[in-house]
């Protein structure tokens, strides 16, 4: 069974640009989560999507947004990139909301 996949692996953007990160959950999983791992800040919850709807978001500004598609894949958009957005962005999925989240390999975003 394929795990959670994310693309691209690496992404380099300039301050002020927009970044789009993509995630495909494990087959059968309907909940998708996004987390940010920035240097010195640890792993922080960003967004949770379930059945196509945003269900919860962490303490991040509105320029972090996303969506979930009918096939349960998801994308994370970061607008007006700032240097401190440089981080590893991890996507996870679960069969039911909450327990047993499985993580993808991550997208490393570098903002210059």
């Amino acid at each position: 069974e394929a795990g959670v996949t994310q693309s691209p692996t690496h992404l380099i953007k300039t301050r002020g640009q927009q970044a789009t990160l993509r995630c495909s959950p494990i087959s059968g999983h309907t909940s998708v989560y996004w987390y940010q791992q920035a240097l010195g800040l640890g792993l922080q919850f960003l967004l949770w999507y379930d059945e196509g709807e945003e269900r919860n978001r962490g303490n991040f500004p509105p320029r972090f947004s996303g969506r979930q598609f009918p096939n349960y894949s998801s994308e994370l958009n970061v607008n007006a990139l700032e240097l401190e957005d440089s981080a590893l962005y991890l996507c996870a999925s679960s069969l039911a909301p909450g327990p047993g989240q499985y993580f993808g390999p991550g997208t490393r975003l570098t903002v210059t």
Partner: protein
Amino acid sequence: GIQVEQSPPDLILQEGANSTLRCNFSDSVNNLQWFHQNPWGQLINLFYIPSGTKQNGRLSATTVATERYSLLYISSSQTTDSGVYFCAVGAQGGSEKLVFGKGMKLTVNP
């Protein structure tokens, strides 16, 4: 919000030694997971263990929910066990949002 503390922050072992990692949390949880982050950043699931005891090969974990802590045991450590171990919890009524500890860096020397 719920707080998660992991100890020790760093640990250096010789191959073959045993170790215990501790995770304390500040409130009731109905989701607790242990992860190993590999050198490329991916979080590898070790255990989903909101309560009770589980074992998987050389690894085992115990969560005492009433006392708000969890332990991860690594026996007969190998160099491939090196990396960062994270405990993450989901609070009751919000278990879909995992709150992570700061992690514990384990180095196993040959």
